[in-house]
């Protein structure tokens, strides 16, 4: 069977103004227990690549520039 992908809104939001992934920072990506964050090479910022969040918060708490915020995902609200 062919494979399709379904759009979904994700809980991890990265403020592009504050994110310093373009300077080599990977803190949020390193600490994520589910490895769902990645660097968008074109924009030079981190983003949530896979919708597999546990809203555990290390990405937000450990970010050196307070660029990351995690909201409770829609289906749980």
């Amino acid at each position, binding site marked *: 069977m062919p494979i399709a992908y379904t759009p979904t809104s994700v809980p991890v939001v990265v403020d592009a103004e504050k994110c310093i992934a373009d300077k080599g920072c990977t803190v949020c990506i390193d600490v*994520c227990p*589910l490895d769902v964050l990645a660097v968008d090479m074109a924009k030079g910022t981190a983003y949530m690549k896979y919708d597999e969040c546990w809203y555990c918060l290390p990405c937000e708490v450990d970010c050196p520039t307070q660029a990351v915020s995690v909201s409770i995902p829609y289906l749980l609200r």
Partner: protein
Amino acid sequence: MSETTRDIEIIETDILVIGGGTAGPMAAIKAKEKNPKLNVTLLEKANVKRSGAISMGMDGLNNAIIPGHATPEQYVKEITLANDGIVNQKTVMAYAQGSFEMIEQLDRWGVKFEKDETGDYNVKKVHHLGTYVLPMPEGHHVKKILYRQLRRHRVQVINRYTATRLVKDTDGRIAGVMGVNTRTADLVLIKAKAVILATGAAGRLGLPASGYLFGTYENPANAGDGYSMAYNAGAELSGIECYQINPLIKDYNGPACAYVTGPMGGYTANAGGDRFIECDYWSGQMMLEFYRELESGNGPVFLKLDHLAEETISEIEEILHSNERPSRGRFHEQRGTDYRHRMVEMHISEIGLCSGHSASGVWVDEHARTTVPGLYAAGDLACVPHNYMLGAFVYGAIAGQDAAEYCESVGEPEPDPQAVAAEAERVRAPLGRDGGVTPYQMEYKLRRMVNDYLQPPKVTTKMEIGLERFAEIRRDTARLSAKDPHELLRAMEVYAILDCAEMAARSSLYRTESRWGLYHYRVDYPEADDANWFAHVQVQREEDGTMSCFKRDIEPYIVALDDSEKAAYSKLRIANTTPKV
């Protein structure tokens, strides 16, 4: 070297610890302390800085055995009762005797525990009989403290590799593990004289009602990998039918933390705000009363705090919204749930396997040894009933020390090359497939079937149908496809979840009685049957690949139970509060 094994990186170590959460780092540290000359490697699926069940810390010890407040004998008795008699008391005693020493060790390392004005540990009563709960209002630093010790002891850490299968030598002794990098899909064979499994609970077994595969009670990285690896290596597992089912905050799916709020005056209540259970300590018996109230006309069930004083509520918020699962505060805020004015709606979790809370695990003795030579287990996946975070630390230490001694008696590990080649082929297969089934779809279907057919109350025919569905999904794994290394990680986890689901169904079918309250409530065998079932149920993979169950006798108790206490955990409902049907 054959085609399939050509591109496998090989790493050699003396002791390999799999899992960098709670038990794993402690095992690695204690092995190094015991013999600093050994090479000790810690393999972690995520990053040890923030991995496992305590990535954001822990708000308290649930089972601290502190002189002057409790004794090891009293604790062994309490857990024997809480787990309906089915315990190897020697394992619980091994934990209990190491408990206080471990608290002092953690204290010296900088973990902060609550103390009273005289400097004594401020222990609280939550259990039915004894006093074992020690709050850690500043417990969010635990992982940082462990990480510092890992570096200090020169443990070699390998992050972002998931272990997929243990490998043995041709004599059946542990010789290492196969793993795959979760970002590059590169394979690795780590040769080791001893392996310590510390991979945590099987937290992705049942499916949360939210619609999110990963919105589980447990850290979803804990997919049951260790249960599956131990099973496939031929180790005995025990008590799998004694599922983990927890009371939690509805939708948020995190713990309500009655252990934190209970000693401060909070309690579990029905819709009328009335108590219906005598004791909030988690046991299957307590969960059965919880379930009955939830489903009754008095339901649902709530955590009641709205009667407490402002300063108490502020303190509760401070602890619960900064520790363990800190996103809880924003969940409540979004719905306008203020503890001062509204009770918190609760529910019961999807099923999981976790000896930290109940009793499902890889069978270990009092030295943390499994039934496979050279293989150890510690933490949530080792069968030491109700052992929680402190039990993970203590059993990690026991495993690390014993493995260090064991290493001196064995030669260089020689993994069976056929097993290595077969595993390389299995792991690589999903990457090469066009189309097929995504790991997410397969996992969703599998876990939906777990909910439909395994969630208690358990019904014989339902569990048999469940096994048919699981067998179909096992055939479907030949069509699993992964478009990148991340999806390959998820595909490998599907195999682990599938093994756990089948073990859960078969162990539950084998024990033809009811026990542990809701955890093993079989509607068609509603009574406990001590004459036939006062025994452990073990599950094991046979040489021909079939799954078999058998009984193992309970070791003679080393701490006798008083007749007057025996019924304590079967009388949890408060008198005259029958659920309204």
